[in-house]
């Protein structure tokens, strides 16, 4: 075997070994997921409304459901209890932090972070309530119940009117006051404190 052949053989062997280490194509592991299986688990809702189910509800309908299923932990009017504060429209059309807030607050005590003054997307409320609430029976609410509760939360936070219907069509169009405040993470390491 001449020198060149040895090199060629060695390279070939190395590339075979590399191929065995890191497969480039599919290994044919796992079972194809059917559309039905995907639909059964795919419950997320995006800001553009993708994933919202048919149905709808109003704050008036939501009030009764809230009193029955949510008030024990979140307070009769969303003022908080053993669980988070949900309602708080102050500061109006602003947020509970930043220079504008500090001027508005003056010597008053701080206001809590709420759906009304901090949540950037109304769709998040639907997604979260449907998947995780009520804490005693997560995932038990119907689509209509969830829409009605979200309508109640938005109305209590003075973002929509009591009579507004929240549905697949209307929810993605709700503009949350804090929406424009959110900015991407600009930290990149290095000397600057951010």
């Amino acid at each position, binding site marked *: 075997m001449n020198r060149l052949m040895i090199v060629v053989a060695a390279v070939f062997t190395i590339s075979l070994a590399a191929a065995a280490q890191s497969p480039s194509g599919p290994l044919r592991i796992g079972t194809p*997921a059917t559309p039905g299986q995907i639909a059964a688990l795919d419950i997320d809702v995006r800001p553009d409304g993708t994933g919202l189910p048919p149905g709808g509800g109003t704050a008036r309908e939501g009030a009764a459901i809230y009193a029955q299923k949510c008030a024990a932990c979140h307070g009769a009017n969303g003022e908080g209890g053993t669980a988070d504060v949900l309602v708080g429209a102050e500061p109006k059309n602003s947020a509970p*932090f930043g220079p504008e807030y500090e001027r508005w607050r003056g010597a008053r005590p701080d206001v809590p972070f709420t759906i009304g003054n901090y949540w950037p997307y109304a769709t998040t409320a639907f997604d979260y309530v449907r998947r995780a609430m009520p804490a005693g029976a*997560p995932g038990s609410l119907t689509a209509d119940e969830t829409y009605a509760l979200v309508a109640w939360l938005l109305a209590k936070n003075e973002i929509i009117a009591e009579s507004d219907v929240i549905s697949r069509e209307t929810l993605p169009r709700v503009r949350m006051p804090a929406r424009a405040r959110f900015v991407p*993470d600009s930290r990149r*390491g*290095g000397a600057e*404190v951010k």
Partner: protein
Amino acid sequence: MLDGLLSGPGMLDLRYIERMTTKNRPTGGVTRRTALTTLSAAVAVTLTPGLVSGQDGALADTTKRWGRLPNALGTRSPAENPRRTPSPTSSRTPLQDLHGTITPSDLHYERHHAGVPVVDPIAYRLMVHGMVDRPITFTLQDLKRFPAATRTCFLECSGNFGGQREDVTPQDLCGLTSQSEWTGVLLSTVFSEVGAQPRATWFLAEGQDAAVMTRSIPLKDAVGEAMLAYAQNGEALRPEQGYPVRLLLPGWEGNASVKWLRRIEVGDQPFMTREETSKYTDPLVDGTAREFSLVMDARSVITSPSYPETIEKGFVELRGVAWSGRGAIRRVDVSTDGGRAWKPATLQQPVLPKAHTRFRYAWEWDGRPTEILSRAVDETGYTQPEMSALQRVRGRRTRYHLNPVTGWTIAADGRVRFGLQRMRA
């Protein structure tokens, strides 16, 4: 004495043990001492209580009685009692009780949002779908068939700051950080299997706990190091760490490493779930709020001496842990005079990227009241900031991702307390 013990009913025959031990060792002969060590356990089992403590409560002379036999599952010394401190939402690692960089699995911090689910590993399925060429469901065995990878890294909750009182321990202050050696399949391997599409930029990770925890993950930033982990410190994941499979994103806030992973949906925009909008975001002093602030910046803490210790004049080794989500710790500076002078501590090797790093510093305490501090510097040149510097850019109301320089005051009587004054700057 030995002969007497061996002669009783039910006692093991020393020659039998020697034979068995030799048989089980392919090379090298068994020494009589090895056999005796094995035997000593047998003797202990047959003896009555009083083995550990003598009649007067003092420790018995362990050289005069045989200890216990080998057993199926080890336990800590009864004299050692490290504990997590649980609250309704989390439990914290006792950093002050640990000496190395790996957190014993049963002391790894917990943070979950609807309790620890009991997941059947046989019924377990992970579905990967969305912007993929081949949506696939994987069993646990499927995931274990893929080429495996192992890495050591820390996990830290981004709400890991508890420095509001003088009487806090390292565990209270920042016990929501822990480190393990994780093994699993790289996410890139699984994405190659399902054919994640080039236009995909985000994916949703979803757990099967009662919170059905979800986080959106920027695909390009994550896919290099992300892992679907099924093992922790050499064995299956602990239930509270996501058994049987969790996402693992080295260096990123713990919440993003979704546990009890049941679904990954590949997409081209963030899903804007509750945790990544209303919770783990950072209000800033200028009125904007930072979202997807996923990387944990460099931090350090002196774990000894710390509250509630009392130290004595003379030699004291300052010991602690430093870590950075952006890479390796380059240096840890220590001050023993309240921040006027800083000197580099010794780093325990090897220093791994995105990993707890031990530092030590030899100090002579002269008995005068002072404050001891530590400050981490990572490979990007980032220096752990003072609380005052953090608050200048983030404002009063920032709640997450707090990594200020912290330390401990030492009074003339040697009592150590958390340096609270520094947090009020």
